[in-house]
Each structure stands twice: as structure tokens, then as C-alpha cells.
């Protein structure tokens, strides 16, 4: 690590490679003046697993399952984007029914992911009861996922040119029952998160990302939309069945009439998106046509077709955290020549810098968590002061954050 020169009034604290917010490795180096953050540096790559490189020895169907293991929370969006990329390169079109089923799976994943995030955010500012409440709701969403796909997390549902499991008529009452439960509890969650005085004190005006910064730093997903940039792949483009559905951009001003781009706006953003997802699933169930669910059910035939493909393709999907972008180049071999994966957090790293500048140490967990970063895990923070090294554990950093909430509540 390269120590930057410090002036007399400032000092450095390195945070990481263990993540202060979610337990995933990323390395921050903060320059502080008292409690105030004056400079931030981010270092990445602690969990670089060379997944793209590993794809050079696999055929496209094997890569679907490799892609699924890039992320544990959005285990649908990576195979989806990879599938779209290879369909683009090979010119395969999925049957109409499959396109609707793909939307249902994508939106269900968004509900799970946003609820998970809401619980983590509550935990970061010291409201563990709210964590249990939101995760109880998430448990229902996971049960529904298990009912529809057979698994809770790694679902293995996506297939090139379609999807692997149909939703039959007898499954629909169960889905509707669960959607009704989400809608009923939504009002309660909204009240807990948006009307609570202490949540407002901690989140309003904290970690501001301006419209210009969001645009110039190429932020994606709820992070950029909470700053007022209307960018949502589901609305922007026509893929899966999103082109047929009634969907519009959501920005926090829908609810409050203004965009501040702070942590509070990012909470609003994700809660509204949960509601939007429920609505989209309902629309899909209503409008879903009957028919096949996969373009080519025989895998050997599909593989021999893909083997002949020469060309490039891109796949873009709106994951819970934002746009996920895959590029693929096929050169007539079994394995792809190049596969490039761009996860949403990749673009949401640079926006952290303007968000964290001017904030306090106790705000690091909630501000960093507010972009819903997705990397992998850790548990230790070191402080270097006057050449001596002190260690500050994740628990202590969390304690600082909780203490700030308690101070504000007094």
C-alpha cells in the first residue's frame, strides 16, 4: 500500500480489504481531518477469481452455471445477461412464453435482493429489529423462489434460448397469495423506513451523489436513479418481455417531489422498486401467452449449433443493483474466444468517492452500503496513526455507527 503524504492536521485510516458494510473484500483508504473524510482511495481485486478466463475451457451451457456462481444474491442476472449475449451472437430467439417467465424470475430476484439490502441497511444504523422484520418478508420471497425453481439461491433456471421450468396454472394461486402478502406488508415496511425520525436523521443529507456526478461517473441501477438519472435497462430497451409491459422510470421524486441523491433517496428508490416488481409479476401472469418455454430442448443439438457461431454479441439486463453487461466473442470453437462480465458494482465504485467526501467515520458503513455493493467477505479494519498501527474491527466500526444513531435519538 502506498501511503500518501499527510498534512499535519490530517491522518489516514485504511478500511478493509474487509468491507465495513457488507462483509465483502474491498480496500478503502481514507484521509481524515478530525472526524471528517477529506480524501478516499479505493482498491479492488481481492476476490478476483478469473471467472472470465475459466470460461475458455467451457462450452456455453457449462458457462451458464459458472455465471450463476459469480454472485450469490443475483444468481439469475449473470446467466441471463450471458444468455442474452450468446443469443445475440447466434441469432437465437426465445419463445414468447419464455420471455414472460424470464421477467417473473428476474423481478422475484429483485424483490429478494432489495429486501435483503433494506435489512442490512437497518442493521448498519443499529435497528436490528427492522433487519429481522425485512428478512422475515424476504424469507417468503425465497420460499416462493424455491416453489417456482426448486432452489432458494442458485436456481439454475436460465437456458440459452428459453427457460428451464414452466409456471403451470395450478401454481398461479400460490404466487398470487404471496404477492398479496408482499403488497399488504409493503405499507408497514414503508412506514418503518420512511417515516421514522431516526432513520431520517441518519440518512437524509448523508452520502449525496449529485445528478452530474452520477452521469459522469457512469453509475448504474438504483444508485443512479436515486440521483435522478433516468436509466433503467428494462425501460430503455426491449428485451425479454419488458417491451410489452407497462413500465416507467422510477426516481425518488415520484414519492417526495424532489431528488436529493442521498441515502434516504436510495432507500425510497429500492422500496418503490419492490412495489414495481410486484406489479410487473402480476402483469406477466395476466399477459403470459401459452407455448413452448425453450427454443431448442435438445442440448446436444443446441451445442452443435453454438459451436458454429462466429461473431460477437452483447447482453444487457437490469439486475437488482443495476445494469449488468456481458460481451461475448465466438470464433467457431466449443468455448467462447472472449467473455467479458461487467457487474453493476464495477460502475458504482467511483461514485463512492464523492458520496463519502465530507462525511464522518460513523457514516462509512451506511454510505458504503447504500449502493448495495456486491464483492465478497471480511472482518478487520486497521488504523495507521503516527506510524503506529491500531486495529479496528468491523464490530467496533459497527458500534461507532450504532452509537451515532443513539446520540441522534437523544
Amino acid at each position, binding site marked *: 500500500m502506498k501511503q500518501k503524504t499527510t498534512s499535519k492536521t490530517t491522518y489516514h485510516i485504511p478500511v478493509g480489504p474487509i468491507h465495513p458494510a457488507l462483509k465483502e473484500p474491498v480496500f478503502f483508504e481514507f484521509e481524515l481531518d478530525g472526524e471528517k473524510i477529506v480524501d478516499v482511495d479505493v482498491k*479492488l481485486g481481492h476476490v478476483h477469481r478469473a471467472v472470465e478466463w475459466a470460461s475458455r475451457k467451457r462450452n456455453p451451457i457449462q458457462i451458464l452455471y459458472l455465471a450463476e456462481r459469480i454472485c450469490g444474491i443475483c444468481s439469475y442476472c449473470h446467466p441471463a445477461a450471458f444468455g442474452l449475449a450468446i443469443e*445475440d451472437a447466434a441469432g437465437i430467439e426465445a419463445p414468447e412464453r419464455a420471455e414472460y417467465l424470464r421477467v417473473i424470475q428476474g423481478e422475484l430476484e429483485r424483490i429478494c435482493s432489495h429486501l435483503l439490502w433494506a435489512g442490512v441497511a437497518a442493521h448498519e444504523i443499529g435497528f436490528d429489529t427492522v433487519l429481522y422484520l425485512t428478512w422475515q418478508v424476504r424469507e417468503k420471497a425465497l420460499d416462493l423462489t424455491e416453489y417456482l425453481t426448486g432452489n432458494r439461491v442458485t436456481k439454475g433456471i436460465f437456458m440459452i434460448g428459453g427457460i428451464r421450468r414452466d409456471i403451470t396454472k395450478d401454481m398461479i394461486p400460490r404466487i398470487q397469495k404471496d404477492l398479496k402478502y408482499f403488497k399488504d406488508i409493503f405499507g408497514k415496511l414503508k412506514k418503518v423506513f420512511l417515516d421514522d425520525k431516526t432513520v431520517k436523521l441518519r440518512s437524509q443529507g448523508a452520502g449525496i451523489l449529485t445528478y452530474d456526478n452520477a452521469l459522469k461517473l*457512469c453509475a448504474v441501477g438504483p444508485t443512479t436513479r436515486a440521483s435522478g438519472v*433516468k436509466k433503467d435497462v428494462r425501460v430503455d*430497451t*426491449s428485451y425479454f*418481455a*419488458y417491451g*410489452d409491459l407497462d413500465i416507467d422510470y422510477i426516481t425518488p421524486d415520484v414519492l417526495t417531489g424532489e431528488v436529493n441523491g442521498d441515502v434516504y433517496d436510495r432507500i425510497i428508490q429500492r422500496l418503490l422498486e419492490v412495489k414495481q416488481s410486484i406489479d410487473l409479476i402480476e402483469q406477466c401472469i395476466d399477459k403470459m401467452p401459452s407455448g413452448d418455454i425453450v427454443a431448442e430442448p435438445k442440448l446436444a443439438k443446441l451445442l452443435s449449433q453454438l459451436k458454429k457461431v462466429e461473431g460477437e454479441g*452483447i447482453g444487457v439486463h437490469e439486475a437488482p443493483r443495476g445494469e449488468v453487461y456481458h460481451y461475448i466473442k465466438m470464433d467457431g470453437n466449443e468455448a467462447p474466444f472472449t467473455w467479458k462480465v461487467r457487474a453493476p458494482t464495477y460502475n458504482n465504485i467511483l461514485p463512492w468517492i464523492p458520496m463519502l467526501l465530507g462525511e464522518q467515520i460513523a457514516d462509512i458503513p451506511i454510505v458504503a452500503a447504500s449502493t448495495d455493493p456486491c464483492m465478497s467477505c471480511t472482518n478487520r479494519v486497521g488504523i495507521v496513526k503516527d506510524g503506529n498501527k491500531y486495529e479496528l474491527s468491523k464490530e467496533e466500526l459497527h458500534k461507532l455507527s450504532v452509537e451515532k444513531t443513539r446520540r441522534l435519538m437523544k
Partner: protein
Amino acid sequence: MAKEKLLTPEELVKSFKDEFKTKIIDAKIKERAAGKKKNVTKSIWMKVNPSVFKDVVKHLIKLQFPHLAVASGNDLGKTIEIIYHFTVNFGTRMKVINLCISVEVPKTKPELETISDIIPGALITEREKAEMLGVKIKGIPDDRRCFVPEDFPEGVYPWRRDKTGPEKYYKNLHEVKK
């Protein structure tokens, strides 16, 4: 963005061709339909001469500030190809164009100008291309490594497919460990 004028893919390609003439080596428009209504999303794949690459991006910003999704890269033997994936027209229902601008630089002199001064969000992806493909990004404000560990040997580029690639490191892992 919605405030600015929306562009059609044909206009976009024509605008580039008028401005840069033969320096635009190739440009093709691809369409993909989806769903019951078969609404179409268009992509432009454009290959430009590296000498005008930065001007092409500047020209694009003049038309509309794009979103840079990522840059991907291929080792093509004698040359290294870098493809910048832009998105334009976002903010309007189903009007987005995926604009993929590719540049090929020779392996003997793999140099490309930075665009992170005009699109600050390009920094991480440019740093990644520099460490993974060994392309020198001229004028980049931060040339440290990004994803590759600090003790990784110099002059080895994980995405290369020749002798500067990572071959010997994964074939003889026991020797690397020593």
C-alpha cells in the same frame, strides 16, 4: 438524456462518417426483437482508426453525453482490440442504442489515449485494460493496478494469448509457489 435530442442509429453513423470519413473503418447496425410485440433494440458496431478514437468520443459527447458501460478487449494475435461499450438515448422508453466502438492497436506499440478526462467513469475500466492486456493508456491520471495483485510479475498480462500471457503461471503452479 431526455433533454437532449434523440438520435437514430442511422443519424449517428452518418454523423460519424461525415466527420471522420475513411477513419471509420466499418459500421454496422444490428437489430434484435423481443417479446410478443416484437419491439426492437438496436446496436451499432463501429470500428475506428486508433488515431481518431478520442475525437470520436469527443464528437459523441457533443451530440449527447453517453453512458460508458465497460470496455472489453481481445488479443487478436498481431493486434489488440479494445471495444468501448457505450449506451446513448437512455431516459426514453425503448430508444436506447448500444454503441460499441472498437479500436485495434498493434502489439508492437500498444498505446491508446485515455478518455477518463472527458468521461471520468472510464477510469476503472481503463486501468483494467492496462493491467490485463498490457495496453498503455496515455495520460491516465491513475496508472496503478486495479484487480491484479501487487506481487503479480511485471510484463505478464492475463488476457494475452502469447508468451506474455499467464500460461506458465497456471501450468506450473508448484514452481510459482517457491
